[in-house]
């Protein structure tokens, strides 16, 4: 287990990389495997954020292909040495103070900086362009305090469509930001989530301008489980697409405690797999959408996307399907163009009061969201706890949004937003 350093301003790939004074010159150099053992389990690669690191033409790929030299060597699940860690540090103090190390990936290549990556953790990295393409199987990697962008300084990426893809990926993001400044980036991940039950987890992340004005863009697509918890969404095409495929479809989608402020289209897209013999029904899969605030939704809050579906029901004949596993409750909606549900809910399903229940069910609200001068902070103001009663639940919206209002000024109820 060894520490390595990368300094794109003063380092050199001819160095040994073992100290800040003998740092490698590029991140890609570490990941190519040219220097044996750099990406071994348990190693830490410190990226000195001296200047941007352009991967450039050395990074080549095409749709779905993994680049062998971009796979961290020997980092496989189940090792005892620990994960490979890639951590950005202040080039002067060598401390992790939140300074971002900027990696310029590719704008117009589907494959970008990583192929099949497992058990690797990135801290405080700002990624431009495609980040990952393919990691079939039980991959586990994490991004902490990272940013995913299509613009940095004067550099803009206009061709990329997403940061993560394709199938069968899984990973965790904590306190990350996904910001499309150019409007090019449609997706956070495309068909992410593993058919083997892996999950995408987005914990306390922010999503801004995904898809821009592009119709049909979605924030997250998934085959397997995907969770967004305590997230903030602003001006996105849609939020989550609980997409499904195969008999394991729709595992464990969870959308809890999010604020969604402004979507071009429907906020939550729920697809289903055609595993029954009753055309015309939309089998809603297990997904939990709880305790969210939806404001200014361009379509429906919940749009059921299966072609030909006439209602939301839960007919199925397969143990891998989850009747009434859907649970859409305790959400507050203000300003929705088309309505809450795009399809009528099957009468029986409604009557069971499990999945769609007036108790804590989706309720129209009346609240204010304000944005600071930067234009992206979200705040909620209300002067009346009881204005926001949810069914039988008298809990105020103020409490609900506690965690989102830290570090911001006290807004006034009724602020224009």
């Amino acid at each position, binding site marked *: *287990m060894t520490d390595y350093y990368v300094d794109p301003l003063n380092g050199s790939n001819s160095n040994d990389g073992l100290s800040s004074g003998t740092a490698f010159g590029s991140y890609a150099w570490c990941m190519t495997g040219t220097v044996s053992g750099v990406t071994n389990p348990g190693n*830490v690669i410190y990226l000195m954020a001296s200047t941007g690191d352009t991967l450039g033409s050395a990074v080549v790929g095409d749709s779905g292909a993994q680049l062998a030299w971009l796979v961290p060597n020997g980092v496989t699940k189940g090792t005892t*040495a*620990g*994960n490979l860690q890639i951590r950005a540090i202040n080039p002067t103090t060598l401390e992790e103070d939140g300074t971002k190390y900027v990696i310029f990936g590719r704008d117009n290549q589907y494959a970008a900086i990583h192929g099949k990556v497992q058990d690797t953790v990135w801290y405080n990295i700002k990624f431009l362009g495609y980040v990952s393409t393919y990691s079939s199987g039980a991959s*586990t990697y*994490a991004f*902490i305090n990272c940013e995913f962008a299509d613009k940095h300084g004067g550099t803009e990426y206009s061709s990329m469509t997403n940061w993560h893809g394709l199938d069968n990926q899984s990973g965790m993001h*904590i*306190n990350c*930001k996904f910001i499309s400044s150019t409007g090019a980036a449609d997706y956070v991940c495309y068909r992410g989530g593993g058919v083997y039950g892996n*999950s995408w*987890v987005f*914990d306390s992340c*922010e999503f*801004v301008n995904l898809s821009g004005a592009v119709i049909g863009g979605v924030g997250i697509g998934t085959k397997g*489980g995907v*969770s967004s*918890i305590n997230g903030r969404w602003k001006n996105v095409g849609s939020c989550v697409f609980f997409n499904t495929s195969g008999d394991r479809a729709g*595992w*464990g989608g969870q959308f809890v*405690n999010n604020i969604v402020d402004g979507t071009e289209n429907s906020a939550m897209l729920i697809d289903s797999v055609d595993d029954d013999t*009753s055309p015309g029904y939309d089998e809603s899969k*297990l997904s*939990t959408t*709880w305790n969210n605030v939806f404001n200014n939704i361009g379509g429906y809050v919940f749009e059921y996307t299966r072609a030909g579906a006439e209602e939301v029901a839960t*007919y199925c004949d397969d*143990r*891998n399907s*989850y*009747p*009434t596993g859907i649970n859409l409750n305790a959400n507050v909606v203000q300003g929705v163009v088309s309505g809450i549900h795009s399809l009528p809910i099957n009468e*029986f399903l409604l*009557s*069971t009061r*499990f999945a769609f229940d007036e*108790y*804590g069910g989706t309720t129209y609200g009346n609240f204010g969201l304000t944005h600071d001068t*930067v234009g*992206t902070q979200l705040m909620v*103001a*209300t*002067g009346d*706890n*009881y204005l926001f009663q949810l069914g*039988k639940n*008298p*809990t*105020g919206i*103020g*409490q*609900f*949004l*506690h*965690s989102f*209002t*830290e*570090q911001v000024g006290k*807004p006034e*109820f009724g602020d224009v937003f």
Partner: protein
Amino acid sequence: MTGRTFYIDPLHGSSANDGLTSASFASGTNGPFGSLTDVWWNGNCADHGGSGDTFFCVASTADVIGDGTSTQYVGYSFNDSVRWAYNVFQNKKMEEYQPQFVGVNENLVEEENTHYTIEWRPPYYSSANVYKFFDDYSSDISFRQLKWECIENDGAMYYHTSGGHGFYFVDCIFDWSGVDDANVVGTSLFSTGNPSTSVKNCTFIGAGDRQKTAMYIGSQYGQHSASYGCRYENWNTAFIQRAGNIDGCFMGNIVKNCNTGVYGGIVSGFGGGHCLVMNNLFYDVDKPVDINGKLGARIMNNLMIDVGSYALADSSGTTNFSLTTGLIYFCFRRNIIQNATSGIIAPEIIAFQNGSLIGYTGPNSMWGNISDNKVVTGLTLDIADDFSFTLECPPELLAPGMTTDLNEVISANTSVGLFMTSGGYSGGITNEGKQERITQ
């Protein structure tokens, strides 16, 4: 047949009736059944209901089932492919619905706090085991507004639903406080080998002195297992996520006066799946969450007050976050803890990095999986017997920008779901740096 409506009315009904009319329209043998036993143990599909039928259970008086000695009314199995075809594993009829058992008042209307009460008197089984109300394959049965009162001898709701889709209980009550202390057995209320069950807005009252487990659910085949907005009191353990290829949910619940709130199951991971433990209130619970060495839970935004041990406990004593064991499924973040007797994180829970002990908090701990929890003082919580509660919060604990205070009474029968989303970035046990806000 499906789509029929049956009526059960213990005060006005009779086993000799056809069950097809309510008491108001009774004539001759046209009238309600007198007991659920007429449907389950003594019934048949042709004229006592089955899949796709609705059973209105009129809360006229208690439905006394069992006499404490006979085994006649225990262990009912839904594994009857003729009568309950919808419920047999992989043998569902596509156009049939779940059967529903619905508690209603004497005007045949569902109303809050009106429950069809089943006074169940199971016979004594042994000092180590109990009889079950349901048994074997039983799935996709929907119950709501029903109350089970177990009297004198201990019993369990069901034991085994391998491969099935399990029950749904909504607005039901399981009151085991009537079991004689001497007869309490440590078996679980819902205990199965491979179950799936979901409960919503239900109340679970334990027997004896924190001796039993309420929910022991989660199926390895991926069926549902969820507890939403429920209330648990006087249990050894409120909720065990046994298994589950899909994600389990324990959200918006109130757990009070229990030894353990949520417990990692017996299958790898947190019950083999990804159990979401969020937005719950744990009060007077020794171990709000015991991961039992099983990683795979996301424990976030919970309020834990008067913890008798550690807020995050590990009864296995061996949990070792080695960064290589699927850690993406585990986190303990943004919880608020007040008065934890032993502390927040059990010392058995340790984190290694590169072979060195690094502790479990702060930016260098794992992937930030244990971070942003907040230890507070000054909260005053007053919970009534019906689980309604008042929580007073001093202004200094309020987040900037939060324009309301917490001095409100939260009524009974409510989820705390919307309340517990707080957590803190400052203070507490973490030195995790705060991510700055979005700028562009």
